[in-house]
């Protein structure tokens, strides 16, 4: 009786560990569901929206200008931030705010990206803490899942003037 129960318990534990490992691999290498909070990506992503992020792009270096990415915060590794990629390494970016009189530009250093929120007036992003290392990127947001009336792919940036062509 006891042996039977122990056997069942071990088998259950084995399945739990295996499925836990698969889930871990899936979240690490494939993607996951993310709940976003904060106003910095409005109107594209509102507070408490649910989105789906995929991790394949970051592993295969397919992150492009204009992608919305989930990134580990440079100043707090335990929290994540959600911003749009405005410039990749080598790109010219505008480091000043739209309201500044004098515009300043710089080039994104190697191995880094320049991130900005869509809600430029209410977003702390690379204009505040500088270019972010590529290694901090965790995934690319590809689909919005909730609210259902906004289900689907995410819109392009409402701030087209922030993307400088070389």
């Amino acid at each position, binding site marked *: 009786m006891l042996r039977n129960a122990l056997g069942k318990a071990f088998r259950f534990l084995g399945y739990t560990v295996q499925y836990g*490992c*698969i889930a871990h691999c899936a979240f690490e290498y494939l993607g996951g569901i993310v709940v976003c909070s904060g106003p910095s990506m409005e109107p594209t992503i509102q507070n408490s929206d649910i989105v789906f992020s995929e991790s394949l792009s970051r592993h295969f*270096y397919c992150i492009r200008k204009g992608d919305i990415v989930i990134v580990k915060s*440079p100043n707090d590794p335990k929290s994540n931030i959600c911003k749009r990629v405005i410039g*990749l390494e080598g790109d010219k970016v505008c480091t000043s705010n739209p309201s500044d009189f004098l515009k300043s530009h710089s080039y994104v250093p*190697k191995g880094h990206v320049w991130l900005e929120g869509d809600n430029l007036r209410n977003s702390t992003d690379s204009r505040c803490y500088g270019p972010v290392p590529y290694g901090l990127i965790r995934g690319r947001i590809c689909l919005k899942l909730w609210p259902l009336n906004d289900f689907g792919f995410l819109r392009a940036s409402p701030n087209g003037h922030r993307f400088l062509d070389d």
Partner: protein
Amino acid sequence: MCHIYDSCFVRLASALYLVVLEASGLYVPAYGKPSLNPGGREASDVVLLNHWSIRNYDVQRGDIVSLVSSVSFWRSIPFATYTWCLNVVCLFLLRSPRNPEQKIIKRVIALEGDIIKTIGYKKKYVKVPHGHIWVEGDHHGHSFDSNAFGPVSLGLLHARATHILWPPQRWQKLQPMLPPERKPLHREQE
């Protein structure tokens, strides 16, 4: 199906895995000398990396850690294409995915809030910003470390190196050891 389960299980049942320290591959190729090797040996050591112990980003001054390199990913795109093919091959045949991101192994010299004197950095004194650390190799002349690229974000922390496993005559547990001449001028946290 079963071999995929096994590879996950083996990979994850222990939170440690082995990395080969390729001295000339990881550090500045022009020098080719290991920068974290006091004995001055040219050959590579095999170290044990512990991912579990840094899950809360708890590092001490003097720890030896491996970091994701923040310099140039795009330049290695042809290399990345080659290695991701290798990744897929490894995952299904050899059951161990290989990571195309470069990892660098350095010693933690200063934590957030510390003020330190730099060696060859653009600023002579640096206060390490919040959420960052300052890392250096033990051979300052040959090391590509924070003196070159500045403070490193804690999010780039990959693992802590706990033991040297190979060669056998160098078996040892790596103790956190801060060189006395590299102590911070001011510590914010004790």
